[in-house]
């Protein structure tokens, strides 16, 4: 049964990566980043189920949740300052820095 669980978490990570790569909106990219991190948290919890002392995986998951929140806050702050200048948050319109 552990294979199905691992496949589920890997699927979440893959969907998140796809969303991150192909999203034109900044907020959508941040949500996909959160999805990737959630998939990895699920991976940790799955593994910690099989051991007698579950502390390692579960404490690590708490840390990851906190850091995901910090990254989301950072991303939203940056998209806010982009929005103030450009009045929109489309990522593909930011193409000033090239080659």
């Amino acid at each position, binding site marked *: 049964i552990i294979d199905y669980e691992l496949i589920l978490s890997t699927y979440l990570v893959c969907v998140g990566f796809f969303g991150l790569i192909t999203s034109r909106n900044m907020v959508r990219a941040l949500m996909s980043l959160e999805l990737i991190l959630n998939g990895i948290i699920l991976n940790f919890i799955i593994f910690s189920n099989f*051991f007698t*002392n579950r502390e390692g995986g579960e404490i690590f998951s708490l840390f990851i949740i906190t850091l995901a929140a910090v*990254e989301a806050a950072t991303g939203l702050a940056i998209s806010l300052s*982009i929005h103030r200048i450009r009045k929109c948050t489309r*990522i593909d319109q930011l193409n000033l820095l090239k080659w």
Partner: protein
Amino acid sequence: MNDINSFLSRLNSTINFSTILPEIILIVGLITIVITDLVNKGKNAIFLYKIFLISTLVSMGILFYQLISVIAFEDLYTNNIFNNLFRFFILICSFISVLLSVDYVLCSKISLAEFPLFKISAGLGGMILSCATNLITIYVSLEFLALSSCFLSGYTKRDIRSNEASMKFLLMSGASSSSLLYGFSLLYGFSDGQVQLDNIIDKISFSQYLPIICISAAFILAGTAFKLSLFPFHQWTPDVYEGSPTRVVAFFSVTSKVAALSLFTRLFRLIFPYLSNEWHIVVELLAISSMILGNLIAVTQRSFKRMLAYSSISQIGYVMIGILAADLENGYASMLTYTFIYIFMNLGTFARITPFSLRTGTNNIRDYAGLYMKDPVLTFSLVLCLLSLGGIPPLSGFFGKHYLFWHGWKAGLYISVTVALVTSVISIYYYLKIIKLMLTKTTNLVDTLKTYEKQKSLVSSVISTKLKSSVEMAMILCALASTLSGLFMDPIIKITRNTFF
């Protein structure tokens, strides 16, 4: 009262505070900066920088003292010379880069207290990353460093290029550190629930789970190679370096690379010793391609910062040879020596670009033409640092490269060392192009340099002489270090020798 006593005694026995004293001093400096800024309500911002400088110096002093007397082991930290050297390097980076950014205080109208705050927090993240032996500590400190650098790179909010750079940095660093984390989760699962690096090696059975360990190694490689900007993961480097303010680029071009080097070495040395053949080949490929790519594209660049970004990609390619060539008698001496020299060379180059871009507002290489006539001190120190980056003999870059390539050749990395030599010669071209441009007298000067004198007098009338000379002090320090460290390389090599683990 009894409970507090027993709690404190238990705390003292589990956490040996003297090992993390340098970090504690930095944290105290951080809190002091926040409180001072709140109390002063935004005036007197120079004082904040002085606090930063003092706390960095005190940390360096204590770390120096600890380098001499090795202190006990711990769970989250181990204190060997390798880790302490990296902490020392990061403190040097923070110190010099703050010297560079002091004049930023008076010449910009953006909020000023957050700048030393984020620099201290990024330095802290780097220092903790150099000592971390726990998967959790590694991930948390890596994210700490990355997010502080992200805030720093988006510091000039009004400039759209800075916003774009920080957005690119955030998204790509989030993606890569989640890839690293996926590798960690596989390691955690298959080593019977261990989070400590030493326990992972004990419990994981390499013969049984070899495919899983290879997959985990691949993900961890992707995660760490991003921070090091090795070949397929280097795309963020030129954009972020060009968009961010120059002082910030100076800071995180050395700090995050040094911290990522220590992380890379520790992870790959400790966890995957049985896979040495596999990951050696992959890292060799990455190093060769980043050397070739970095040097070839840097030839075509027109912006100074972008050219320095590509040249730093190739410098990390050289350092990778040092990592691959580590053996029992020499440890990581070549990599550590070259990193030390690289810090000074890189910071020195940025120390010259910063006042130039402050005075003329441009970063194009063509605008450096004829600088010799206007500002000979800047020109000569820039010449020294660029020649050191290229690897010309009497300067220290040559000695660092020579030691690195000799070490690599002795370890049998013939292809890498040959490619490195060829690309080194190519890199001399684009450094010399700038030097020639600066030193030759042009009959019709560019417009930017015609206004150079006027702006220089404007700046020096506003800021006091003490501040103006802090950038010059950093310039001279880096110039001296990049010329003289080559001659005094023997003691450095001797210190960095016993770092094999």
